[in-house]
């Protein structure tokens, strides 16, 4: 089921009305569109609903017959152009052999000025309806064909295409069953846009007098009106120009509304859900506490969905606490909440880092990111901006130093700590290996000497041996600087090895001590080899 936005609904209604007009209209009108029996320039009346034109033709009759011509040309030209762009786009994207031919053909057509071509073809062929349809259909496919080709090129790398090839699915089967559904929205948009362009093109060509003078279309009606000076001597322009012009305007606007895509995607609507009882329990925690991180009765909710159930724990200065749990257990959300990355209205309870409240009721938090606490994300490649040198990203994060020389010296010192050379500062992220980037990220986290480090799967994206090196380095630095480390991981053996305290989260809930013992025992059985 496709849900329509209000603008699309208006588009559907308008297009529907005009199509009805084209179908039913000619039956209602008693006059032939080209008969010249009536008087010239008659105003609208009971026998001539929209009056007559300069040579005495009934305008209503011409309008509804013209609707047939105009819509027919639009549908046919759009149909041919859409079928061509889809078929050729699919083939060019999927077949390595056909791609060079089809792609260069499309490039050639794209380079040619299409309006000029259409004018030349139309004036040579006399501009009958079919000539126009074929010209428009055959010349306007390359744009969308390139778009479809590009998306097929990326889609065919997906494994379900490889799997279908493995099951010996034929090319036609893969194209129609696997790939066509993906470009459905593109096809719809392409058809509507082509429809609109074809109508506009037909109207323009008729208006400048190209085409068969015996057929009626909206563009031709306008041309009739504008080419005679009598039109403007009286009020006749009102019924000669306004109806066809309004019709053209309506159909193009309607198609534009139809083609408009609405933005989809679910957004969490974070709702304010504060209980009075929680507000009362806040003041118990003193700032002079030795704990670097204090989490008290913290609950995280996205709308009505509770991600983290109320939880309390502390991390001591110089201590290591690991949050362990499976994907979806809420451990990353918890870590993000502690660093103040979750919208305030979704978080309940108190979080203090280094004595600063992370979430304040009405004013911004006094906790300074990078200075009071630093956060290391999972994939180092995503943490660095690819178009800035490592050095610039260091200087941006530095809060303690003011002069460039100081900043540089501090950055170099931090890099030396993680066994990286000074030259790294002038390099871009893509010039470093994953392991080097991870080290650089640790250096970046150390550079402001924060009291607290939050590391979310800091080695998740690395190969086993490099992973171990980086992990050991991280732990060594944390101990050297007496930082508090909150480690989020699902690598239980590693967490057991280094942590002072382990907190196991399951479905947003902290396990009780007995449950946790049992969980740890079970996990040891999972990997007997590592539990030596």
């Amino acid at each position, binding site marked *: 089921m496709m849900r329509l936005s209000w603008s699309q609904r208006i588009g559907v209604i308008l297009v529907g009305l005009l199509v009805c007009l084209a179908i039913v209209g000619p039956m209602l009108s008693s006059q032939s569109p080209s008969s010249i029996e009536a008087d010239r320039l008659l105003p609208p009346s009971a026998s001539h609903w929209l009056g007559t034109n300069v040579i005495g033709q009934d305008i209503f009759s011409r309008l509804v017959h013209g609707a047939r011509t105009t819509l027919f040309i639009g549908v046919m030209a759009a149909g041919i152009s859409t079928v061509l762009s889809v078929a050729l786009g699919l083939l060019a994207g999927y077949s390595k052999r056909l791609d060079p031919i089809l792609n260069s053909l499309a490039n050639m057509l794209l380079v040619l000025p299409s309006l000029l071509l259409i004018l030349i073809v139309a004036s040579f062929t006399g501009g009958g309806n079919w000539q126009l349809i074929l010209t428009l259909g055959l010349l306007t496919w390359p744009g969308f064909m390139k778009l479809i080709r590009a998306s097929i090129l990326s889609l065919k790398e997906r494994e379900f295409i*490889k799997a279908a090839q493995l099951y010996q699915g034929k090319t036609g089967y893969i194209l129609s069953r696997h790939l066509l559904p993906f470009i459905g929205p593109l096809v719809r948009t392409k058809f509507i846009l082509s429809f609109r362009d074809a109508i506009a093109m037909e109207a323009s060509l008729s208006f400048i007098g190209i085409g068969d003078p015996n057929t009626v279309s909206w563009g031709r009606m306008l041309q009739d009106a504008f080419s005679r000076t009598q039109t403007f001597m009286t009020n006749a322009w009102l019924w000669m120009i306004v109806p066809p012009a309004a019709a053209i305007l309506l159909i193009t606007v309607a198609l534009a509304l139809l083609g408009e895509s609405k933005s989809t995607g679910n957004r969490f609507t974070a709702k304010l859900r504060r209980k009075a009882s929680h507000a009362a329990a806040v003041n118990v925690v003193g700032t002079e506490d030795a704990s670097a991180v204090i989490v008290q009765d913290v609950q995280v909710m996205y709308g009505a969905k509770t991600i983290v159930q109320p939880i309390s724990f502390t991390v001591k200065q110089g201590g290591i606490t690991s949050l362990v749990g499976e994907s979806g257990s809420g451990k990353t959300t918890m870590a993000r909440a502690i660093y103040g990355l979750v919208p305030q209205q979704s978080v309940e309870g108190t979080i203090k880092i280094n004595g600063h409240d992370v979430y304040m009721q009405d004013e911004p938090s006094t906790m300074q990111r990078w200075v009071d606490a630093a956060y290391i994300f999972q994939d180092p490649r995503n943490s660095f901006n690819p178009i800035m040198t490592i050095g610039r990203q260091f200087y941006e994060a530095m809060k303690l130093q003011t002069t460039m020389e100081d900043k540089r010296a501090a950055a170099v010192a931090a890099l030396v700590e993680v066994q990286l050379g000074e030259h790294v500062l002038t390099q871009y992220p893509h010039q470093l290996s994953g392991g080097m980037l991870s080290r650089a990220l640790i250096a970046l986290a150390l550079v402001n000497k924060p009291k607290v480090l939050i590391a979310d799967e800091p080695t998740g994206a690395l*190969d086993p041996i490099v992973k171990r090196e980086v992990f050991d380095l991280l732990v060594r630095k944390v101990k050297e600087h007496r930082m508090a480390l909150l480690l989020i991981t699902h690598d239980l053996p590693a967490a057991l090895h280094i942590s002072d305290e382990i907190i196991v989260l399951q479905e947003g809930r902290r396990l009780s001590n007995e449950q946790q013992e049992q969980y740890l025992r079970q996990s040891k059985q999972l990997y007997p080899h*590592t539990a030596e």
Partner: protein
Amino acid sequence: MSVLLQVENVTKHYAGSVKGQTIRAVDGVTFELEHNEIFACIGESGSGKSTLAELIVGLQQPTSGTLTWLDDARAPHMSKPTSQPQLVFQNPDRSMNPYWRIRDIVTEPMRLGGCPKRQAYAEAEQLLAKVKLSADLLGRYPHECSGGQKQRIAIARALSVSPKLLIADEITSALDPSTEAEILQLLLSLKQSEGMSILYITHRLETISGFADRVAVMKNGAILEMGETDSVLADPQSAYTIELLRAVQYS
């Protein structure tokens, strides 16, 4: 045990980005896969293990060397897909068409093999039962299933043509440790009930003990060490294996 597949001195070279440079993705690999065994292939990213999988199922052709199937039931030109090796991919989100229902995904190999749609649909329920999933999932789309469920569905799809060899290419790398353990358990029981061999490709050395019968450690496209899993883990010979083992142990 009898041999199912002989891989002899297989190499796969690609042209590199620099002219004249060749990338040796697989570089002279020789081993034998036996009937009804789980053979683990360990290596870090770029060690050539996924290329090896694609060579075995025929998605790519080797530059040199031979792959010989010593299975009587198998027709030489693969006219019947019944004994064709099946590949389960790493990322279930990319290995299933998101526009298809589970029913169609699971039965795709059967339907392409010429089985009538109605009969294939009738068997879909049994296929899901084999991987311990409820038939309720049949009408769903992949995005409505969890990661573990999706990998089970991918396994069910591979089982639909009763393959003699199932290749699992890092199928648990996107899963949680406990889901991973469940999938390994499932593969173990399928090995017994279906009587097939499994080539299990992973970078996680710690998962294979008690699971794989034999293991090969790969680096830079070549096999460094191969043997019974227990003996390789207990007494690794190559320096690389020792280093790998050390990286996952905390004492």
